[in-house]
């Protein structure tokens, strides 16, 4: 149980810099999720925390202790891998106890810890099996168990669920959440799936191209994305963006003013174009709506429905619709937007603060 501090970390592979001067800290007992598209540097960051990659510059502290020159085993971490990385020639019990036995822990204690972990994860009946005789979910549980028995200060998860099918993934997600609540240990979880990030995280770090784009709780990121990238990445279906021209302090789209650009911002920057971000759930289909478009696709998920609406200038927006009403393809619909929930982004992608 410990805090984790990353201070001014840089990573280069040869001449290519893959992590640019990055700092962040994880609180004790917090479940922090690193999220971002593939190649964004999130896994490299995790591997540097684990000690599998060396830092080019900067430092990493766990529990206030500088660890970045220590070998992985001495850092007080445990890691769960995407491919589970089980030892194929050892059975489940052997896999679970391997690190402890290697560290020279007395046999009795190893057995006790292994049994405890097996209990938590329901691995009891599988203890004598080899990895090749287990299903994907079972293997994943063994991999997690292997981390648990070490009672680490920080758990590291590297896309642990991406090899599982959808149903199992949801199930395991819940199990990990429960595990976190039970163990109350510091965890870092890497994923490219924003749903996993939203559901699991105490706080999320969004990575892009080796930079941290934003750090915050899931709701903070959802409500106040710092930029267009985060806004588009967090939330499902993704936020709609509509390009608008700024005329006299108003954002104009299709010769209709959508919103007014806050005057506090116009003072220092003279915007001519902005991007208006609207989440699907903030679009209201109304017969007397201000805007109109034709229905292109109609997705019904049972509890909710989504309309893909083609606007006059050929931009498409996705809107949440009432699950009980019915729409035909090609039908014209009208809608309004919830003004207070609009996001506005400058041409460089940065969010324009709402006054």
């Amino acid at each position: 149980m410990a805090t984790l501090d990353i201070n001014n970390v840089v990573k280069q592979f040869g001449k290519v810099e893959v992590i640019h001067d990055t700092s962040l800290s994880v609180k004790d007992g917090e479940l922090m999720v690193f999220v971002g598209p593939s190649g964004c540097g999130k896994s490299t960051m995790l591997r540097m925390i684990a000690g599998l990659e060396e830092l080019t510059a900067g430092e990493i502290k766990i529990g206030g202790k500088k660890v970045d020159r220590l070998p992985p085993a001495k850092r007080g971490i445990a890691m769960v891998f995407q491919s589970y990385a089980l030892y194929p020639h050892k059975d489940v019990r052997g896999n679970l106890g391997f690190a402890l036995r290697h560290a020279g822990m007395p046999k009795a204690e190893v057995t006790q810890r292994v049994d405890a972990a097996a209990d938590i994860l329901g691995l009891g009946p599988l203890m004598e099996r080899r990895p090749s005789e287990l299903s994907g979910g079972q293997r994943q549980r063994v991999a997690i168990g292997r981390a648990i028995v070490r009672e680490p200060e920080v758990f590291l998860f590297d896309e642990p669920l991406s090899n599982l099918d959808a149903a199992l993934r949801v199930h395991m997600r819940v199990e990990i959440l429960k595990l976190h609540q039970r163990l109350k240990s510091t965890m870092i979880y890497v994923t490219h799936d924003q749903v996993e990030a939203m559901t699991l995280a105490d706080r999320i770090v969004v990575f892009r191209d080796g930079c941290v784009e934003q750090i915050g709780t899931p709701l903070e990121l959802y409500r106040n994305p710092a930029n267009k990238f985060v806004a588009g990445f967090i939330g499902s279906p993704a936020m709609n963006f509509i390009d608008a021209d700024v005329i006299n302090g108003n954002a104009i789209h299709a010769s209709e003013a959508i919103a007014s650009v806050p005057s506090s911002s116009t003072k220092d920057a003279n915007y001519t174009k902005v991007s208006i971000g609207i989440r699907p759930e903030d679009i209201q289909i109304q017969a007397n709506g201000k805007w109109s478009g034709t229905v292109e696709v109609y997705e019904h998920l049972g509890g909710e429905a989504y309309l893909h609406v083609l606007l006059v200038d050929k931009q498409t927006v996705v809107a949440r619709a009432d699950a009980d009403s019915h729409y035909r393809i090609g039908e014209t619909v009208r809608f309004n937007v919830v003004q207070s929930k609009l996001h506005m982004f400058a041409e460089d992608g940065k969010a324009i603060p709402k006054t």
Partner: protein
Amino acid sequence: MRNNPLSSIAIHSVLILYSLLALFPLVLIAINSFKSKKGIFRDPMALPLGDLYSSKGYQSVLANGDFPLYFGNSLIVTLISLVFILLLGAMAAHALTEFRFKGNGLLGLYLILGIMVPIRLGTVALLELFVKLGLTNTLTALVLVYTAQGLPIAIFIFTEFLKSVSGEIKDSARIDGLSEYRIFFEVVLPLIRPVIATVAVFSMIPIWNDLWFPLILSPGEGTRTVTLGIQQFIGQYTVNWSAVLAALSVAIMPVLVMYVIFSKQLIRGITAGAVKG
């Protein structure tokens, strides 16, 4: 493939047909090893029955009381060289695929250069070297040469396969606190067991059957290998074919046993060891 009886018959016909092709010459060798030279050429196809039967070949092999020694020498040289080739080759291939360091690519290329020229061409320099080291007429000399000769191809094949071994399992072992040494011996080696068996089969045959280096480096009485021992039956104008066939029929047994052992390892390794990703 579904097991319908018709395709099963077809499959076994193909296999049996090819078995005949593979075995026919071997059976000829075996039956003719029980004939005199005249018997061999009078009717090579006939079974060694009646007056065709002659154990003269085996007798002349047995009469030379040194053959057990020759077999022992061949076995020692082959097995020790194999251990070196497999262990050192796997170690080097592991380092080349696992660690990033300066000159990695060049060293990898350097280590497989030896595939491209037969080491036999370096005979004179080798012999001079062993004279200086005082190692002529020792089995050590043979082991060293065969190890050097077998390493490039072993490293080549090991590298090919190690590239496909998941890196995560090694990282996992690192987090478990294993030293790099133990990661290799306890995690990587068991993982590549089937490949080790393949390379073993690949490497042992040229060593077992080599004539040249025993002839040059260790022709002494005490260090002769089987192939060299057999040469005494091959003369300028007269070849004692019965003895040659007899000796070679026996000489195939040890390698056959080794092959069976290795190929079992190979199959077991493949079917039990693989963890699907």
